[in-house]
C-alpha cells in the first residue's frame, strides 16, 4: 500500500490571518492518493477544499503538516502536479494552441515536439478547428477544455482539479465529465477533483472524500465500486443511485 501512494497530505492545518480576523480553514487533514486513482472531494461551500488543493499543489504553505510527493516533502509548486482551476484561467493574449503549448514552452521542449504535442492535444480536446482562436472567442465549455488540455500536455503524473466544471451549464457539464473519463482512461493519471455535484463525484471517482464545514476535516471516505468503463448511462443503475443517496446522507450528517 505504501508504495502505491503518490501524493499524501499529513496532518495539514491551516489558518488564514486577515484584517477581518483569523479563519481556521483546515484542521488536521490527512489523505493519500494512490497512483492512477480518481478521487473526488466534496463538502459544503467554504469548508476549505480549494485551500487543501492549493496546499497539495505546493502553492500555499500550510501552518502545520506537510505534503509528500513520492514520499518527498514538497515546499513549492511542482511541474509533476497539473492544475485546473474553477475558471478556465487562459491567457487572453495567446491563441488556443498558444495556451496549450505554454507548459511545453516553459519546460523548453524542442519546437517540433511542441507542435506535435499541441496538435495531438487539439485533437484530444476536440478543438482542431479553433487552434488560432483567442479565448474571448470560445464558449465556456471550449475554454475549459483548453484548460484541461493545458494541464495534460506536459504529462504531469498528478492532476488537481478545483471544480473544473463549476461555471458550466448542466448539459455541457455532463458531457465534459464523460470526456474527462475518456481522457483519464487513456492517460491514467492520478486525479483529485473538487466538485459540488454528488452524481458527478460518483460517476467519476474510485473514492469520494467528504469534508466537514469549516474548519474542514475529512469525515468520510466512500469507495465507489461501480464497474468501469462508466458512461452517462451508469447514472441510471440502482447501485449508482444508492451510492449518491448514501453520500448525500453522509454530507448532511457532517454538518
Amino acid at each position, binding site marked *: 500500500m505504501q508504495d502505491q501512494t503518490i501524493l499524501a497530505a499529513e496532518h495539514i492545518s491551516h489558518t488564514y490571518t486577515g484584517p477581518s480576523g483569523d479563519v481556521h480553514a483546515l484542521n488536521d487533514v490527512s489523505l493519500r492518493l494512490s497512483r492512477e486513482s480518481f478521487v473526488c472531494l466534496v463538502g459544503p461551500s467554504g469548508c476549505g477544499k480549494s485551500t487543501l488543493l492549493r496546499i497539495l499543489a505546493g*502553492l500555499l504553505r500550510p501552518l502545520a503538516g506537510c505534503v509528500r510527493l513520492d514520499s518527498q516533502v514538497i515546499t513549492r*509548486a*511542482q*511541474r509533476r502536479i497539473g492544475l485546473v482551476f474553477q475558471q478556465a484561467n487562459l*491567457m487572453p493574449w*495567446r491563441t488556443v494552441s498558444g495556451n496549450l503549448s505554454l507548459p511545453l514552452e516553459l519546460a523548453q521542449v524542442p519546437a517540433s515536439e511542441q507542435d506535435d504535442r499541441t496538435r495531438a492535444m487539439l485533437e484530444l480536446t476536440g478543438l482542431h478547428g479553433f487552434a488560432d482562436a*483567442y479565448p*474571448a472567442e470560445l464558449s465556456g465549455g471550449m475554454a475549459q477544455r483548453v484548460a484541461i488540455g493545458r494541464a495534460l500536455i506536459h504529462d504531469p503524473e498528478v492532476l488537481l482539479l478545483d471544480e473544473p466544471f463549476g461555471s458550466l451549464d448542466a448539459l455541457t457539464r455532463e458531457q465534459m465529465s464523460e470526456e474527462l473519463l475518456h481522457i483519464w482512461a487513456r492517460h491514467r493519471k492520478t486525479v483529485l477533483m473538487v466538485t459540488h455535484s454528488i452524481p458527478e463525484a460518483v460517476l467519476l471517482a474510485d473514492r469520494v472524500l467528504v469534508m466537514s464545514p469549516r474548519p474542514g476535516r475529512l469525515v468520510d471516505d466512500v469507495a465507489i465500486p461501480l464497474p468501469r468503463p462508466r458512461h452517462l448511462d451508469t447514472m441510471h443503475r440502482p447501485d449508482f443511485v444508492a451510492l449518491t443517496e448514501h453520500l448525500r446522507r453522509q454530507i448532511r450528517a457532517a454538518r
Partner: protein
Amino acid sequence: MDSNTYPAGQRHRSRPTTDTLPTLRLPPRIARWQWLLAPAFGLALLLIWEAVARSGLYAAFIVPSPGDVAHRWREIAADGSLVRHTAVTLREVLTGLLIGVAAAFWLGYLIAKSRVVAYMLMPYLIALQAVPIVAIAPLLIIWFGPGIASKVIICALLVFFPMLVNTVLGVRNIPPELRDLMASLEATPLQTFWHLELPAALPIVLGGLKVSATLSVIGAVVGEFVSASEGLGYLINFGRGTYDTPLVIAIVLTLTALALALYGLAAWLEHLLLVWQDAGQS
C-alpha cells in the same frame, strides 16, 4: 485629456484602442457623409478665422490671417530653420520620452512587485508628481545647463508619472490564478516576466505610453521656454519678442502635429501588439 490617464476603473478586458469620445451611430442617410463632418467643421473654423483677420478689428500682429501663417511656415521651411529647430526639439523629446518611460516602467514594476519598495518610494513619487514642473524648470537649467540635458530631464520627469501609475496598475492587476499557473509550471522569474507579466500588463502600460508621448512634447517646450538657443520652444519665444505672431502660430501648429504624430506612433504600436484585444468583440 486621454481617458487612460487614470486607469483605475480600467479592467483587463477594456480596449485601450477606444478613443476618448464614444462613437455615435449616425442614421444611414448621414453616415455616408460621416467622414466629411470633421473636415467641414475645420474649414468653417478656418473661414471664421480668416473673416476675423480681414475685418480690421485687430492689428495683423495680433490676429494674422491663416494665409499669413501659412506663408511664414513656408518661409521657415524653405530656409531650413524649421527642420533644424524641429530636429533639436525632436531629439530632446525622444530622448526624454525614452529615458522617462524606461525608468518609470522598471520602477513601476519594482513597486508592483515589492511592498518594501512601494512603501519606501511611493510618498516621494506622489510628491514629485505634485511639484509643478514649470516651476522647477529654472532650477534644472541652473543645475544641468542650457543645453539638451536639462530639457531631456524636464521631459523625462513629465512623462514619468502616467507611465509609472499605469505600470504599477498593470502589473498589480494580473489575476493571481495566472500567477499560480506559472508557479505550478515552475516558471523562472524571467519566464514569468516574459510570458505573464509583460503581456498581461501591456494594454494598461501602452495606455500610459500614449499619454506620456503627448506630454513629452510639452516637457521639451517648457525647457526651451526657460532657456535655450535653439528648438521650437526657442522659436516661439523669439517670435513673441519680435511680434512675429504668424511665426508663433506656425510653430504652435508644428508642435501640435509633432505631439499628434507621437501619439499616433504609440497608438499604432498598441494596435500592432494588442491584436488579441479585438478578438470576440463583435
